[in-house]
């Protein structure tokens, strides 16, 4: 039965992306279309990086953002999101989460990592910083939900910023997540 999909902020608002990262003017239509066709309600999560490092932020990897202060910021956001997820879970709604693969904050299965990255923001083109794992916000959300005794929703991530992005595979992942 369709339920509630908690989606990464940028998937409804590409204006929140770091410079060069906006793939469309505002709403990432393929996700919205798929969720709506299948009867899922949409709830948007906040963008962890937007309020912390701002609209003029550089692209960053996990190691650059993984500070105690950023963790506290993400936990504050996660408390808000977890409260909303908890409302739906307690009401018996099916809840899923759609993050953004490759993101240092919102990656679900793929984040970005490079321990050497830092200082002056120049690095060789083609450097591959993608690595398995979750982003910092996703980790903090899982921890917050665990503390509340609320299960982590089934989750996937949109892949449109990965070099091997395949829209059909992305859609199949969403369809699989939505359970029919």
């Amino acid at each position, binding site marked *: 039965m369709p339920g509630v999909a908690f989606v990464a902020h940028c998937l409804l608002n590409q*204006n929140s992306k770091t410079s060069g990262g906006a793939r469309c*003017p*505002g709403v990432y239509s393929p996700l919205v279309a798929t969720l709506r066709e299948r009867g899922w309600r*949409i709830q948007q999560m906040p963008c962890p990086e937007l309020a912390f490092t701002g609209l003029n932020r550089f692209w960053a990897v996990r190691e650059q953002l993984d500070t105690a202060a950023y963790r506290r910021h993400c936990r504050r956001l996660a408390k*808000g999101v977890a*409260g909303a997820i908890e409302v739906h879970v307690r009401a018996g709604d099916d809840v899923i989460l759609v993050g953004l693969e490759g993101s240092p904050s919102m990656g679900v299965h793929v984040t970005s990592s490079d321990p050497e990255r830092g200082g002056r923001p120049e690095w060789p083109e083609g450097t591959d910083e993608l690595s398995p794992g979750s982003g910092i916000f996703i980790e903090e959300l899982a921890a917050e939900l665990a503390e509340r005794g609320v299960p982590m929703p089934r989750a996937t991530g949109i892949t449109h910023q990965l070099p091997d992005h395949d829209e059909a595979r992305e859609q199949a992942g969403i369809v699989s997540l939505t359970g029919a």
Partner: protein
Amino acid sequence: MDAGDERSYRVALIAEELVNPDGRGIDGLAALESAGWGVIQLPSRDYPDGVAAPLLELVAEQTEEFTRHGYTVAVIGRRAGLDEALAAYGVSGLPSIEPRSTAALARFLAAQSGRGDCPR
């Protein structure tokens, strides 16, 4: 801004029931998607105050960043507590509409001007 960046510089704070109209009323999300606006979804009116208040604060915090950078920001629909949350972050006087029709919403969106009108 990077030449390949497709952002619209337009962001709407929109009531939850206009994002999830469930086949009733105005589909605000579709209107914003069609007009190329980004969305900041307001917390559901069904959430208890203790759940909604922190979410409204996060909305206000993010809105402040967009207004600081000259993005066009508007409010679509109504959410109790939003004005107070925005005021706490120094944001007030945003253009707003409680749309009575999809056409009225489309006209409102088209009438908003700002940074998104400038060549990038």
